[in-house]
């Protein structure tokens, strides 16, 4: 039998697990009952994985979550995006309608998706990649994620996990405990330590680093 059924069998035998205390979430979007998140970038940046990790973390927060993705046929380059909806109630319509949070890792993604952001939404972008900041009246945060990943973590490929750390630190859409658990589970075997460092660095990014490196 699959691992899935085995673990649930054990659980049924023990009766339902005790409800765990609500996981604490703090940040600019932490109080929203329903959030739509879009990660946009180009193929090879790990954009789809970001969505999967975030969705896994939201699931660990015991919230309803839906993740969808779309990408071009190229292995590198081309467009890539990953959408996540997190809600306290079951999610019916699985596609994004009005985006609360856009994380743009390429100029094309920033330009293409900024129109779909809500007025009170948040735009987070990698200012190494997005050099022309699209017009958006809401909260706009630029951080040189890819540069920090390369210079401080020592591996450019960790930029996606580092960005995710910053996203969680700033918005609080999922709890820190859950994102840590999700990252360790979803990243390739052997890279947990590296990605753990990238995540911690991302979570530690504070307001003084916003834009500051970029201009």
């Amino acid at each position, binding site marked *: *039998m*699959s691992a*899935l*059924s085995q*673990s*649930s*069998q054990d*659980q*049924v035998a023990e009766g*339902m*697990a005790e*409800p*765990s205390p609500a996981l604490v979430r703090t940040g600019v979007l932490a109080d929203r009952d329903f959030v739509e998140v879009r990660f946009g970038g180009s193929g090879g940046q790990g954009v789809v994985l970001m969505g*999967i990790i975030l*969705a*896994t973390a*939201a*699931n660990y927060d*015991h*919230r*309803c*979550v*839906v*993740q*969808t*993705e*779309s990408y071009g046929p190229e292995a590198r380059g081309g467009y890539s995006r990953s959408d996540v909806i997190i809600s306290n109630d*079951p*999610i*019916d*319509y*699985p*596609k994004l*309608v009005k985006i609360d949070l856009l994380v743009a890792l390429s100029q094309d993604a920033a330009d293409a998706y900024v129109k779909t952001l809500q007025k009170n939404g948040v735009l987070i972008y990698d200012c190494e990649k997005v050099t022309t900041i699209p017009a958006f009246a809401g909260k706009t945060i630029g951080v040189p994620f890819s540069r920090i990943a390369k210079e401080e973590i020592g591996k450019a490929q960790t930029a996606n996990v580092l960005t995710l750390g910053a996203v969680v630190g700033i918005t609080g859409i999922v709890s820190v405990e859950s994102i840590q658990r999700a990252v360790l589970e979803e990243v390739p075997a052997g890279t947990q330590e590296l990605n753990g460092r990238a995540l911690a660095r991302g979570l530690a990014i504070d307001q003084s680093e916003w834009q500051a490196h970029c201009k």
Partner: protein
Amino acid sequence: MELWHTHLLREKVDQSSLLVQGNRACALGALDAGVRFFAGYPITPSSEIMEAMAYELPRVGGVFVQMEDEIASICACIGASLSGRLGMTATSGPGFSLMQEAIGYAIMVEAPLVIVDVMREGPSTGRVSVPSQGDVMQARWGTHGDHPAIVLAASTVADMYRLTMAAVRFSQRFRTPVILLADEMVGHIRESFSPELVGRYRLTSGDFDFTPGYVHPELVREVHPPHVLGSETHPHVTGCTHDETGFPTKDSGESERFLHGLYDKVTNHRDELCLYDVKNEGKGRVCIVAYGSCARSARAAWRLADQEGLPVEVLHLYTLFPLPVEIIQTVARRVEFMLVPELNLGQYAREVRKLAEPWTTVISMGKVGGNLITPREILNEVTRLIGKYESV
């Protein structure tokens, strides 16, 4: 008696929830229902089902074969079923077209079989990674001749799990192929999915008896006992119209009885086979009849309508065929309009219309092009209909 599937159709997210992709949930459902043979040929957007089966089956003592094409795949599944193991395959439109001839053969030789069709845009190659519901009538009438069909439609990840289980059970009980329709959205989406469903309502071995030659005691009069290859008896299996011995018959009375029998064993059990769910029951002037991914849009539209004070109910169909005659006619008697949103040009609306027209007006809302119907589009149509009513 409470039907086993009423448990499975509950909605639940709990602390043991996992994030699972629709296609993977389908494979998990199959494994948990006891499927131990899978033959297939990869095709987007169904490939993950095959991938999961290729990985999992050898670990549970099952057999996985990648065949040279879809025709060979379904034939291998029929072979497995005839030797006492239920065969399963998964494909998308182009592969489903290739399988049609063998589906007829499986119906004729009464081989239980589960076929998952994760629909993409068609006809022909179409577009590979966009959702569509264009194969609905193909699932019903794709193979030639008068034949029964059991067709289920999944709209969530949990559906992919539980309806795969239902498909296995139905095919085993009625000894006929069962088709599970999903679409690209349902196949590729990842969603929180409660394994609690899996554990507590795991079906007992009595529900899934794979003993060669087994026929459920309730159905012995309707389902012909199978001839099992490799057993003591001398089997003869043929796509020709045959009598009880399995050999072809030339007797017209015999063949009439046989063909009626094939049909009746399915249509006499609509109560068991027709799975559905009604939201806002009895409170709507418009009923949105939906299945698959459109049912999600329909539910979202109902929540929006509720906020705006519009009287809407939703009939979410999990079973498309045999036609859920009773529930469609019950709802038709109490609402003024039935609205059928679907990702094709009105294939199922026609079926609903045939059943509901004496009592109500059926409006087809078909859409092609690869985008889902949005809740807002449905709501606009509802507003138009009710507004129209009030101005009369």
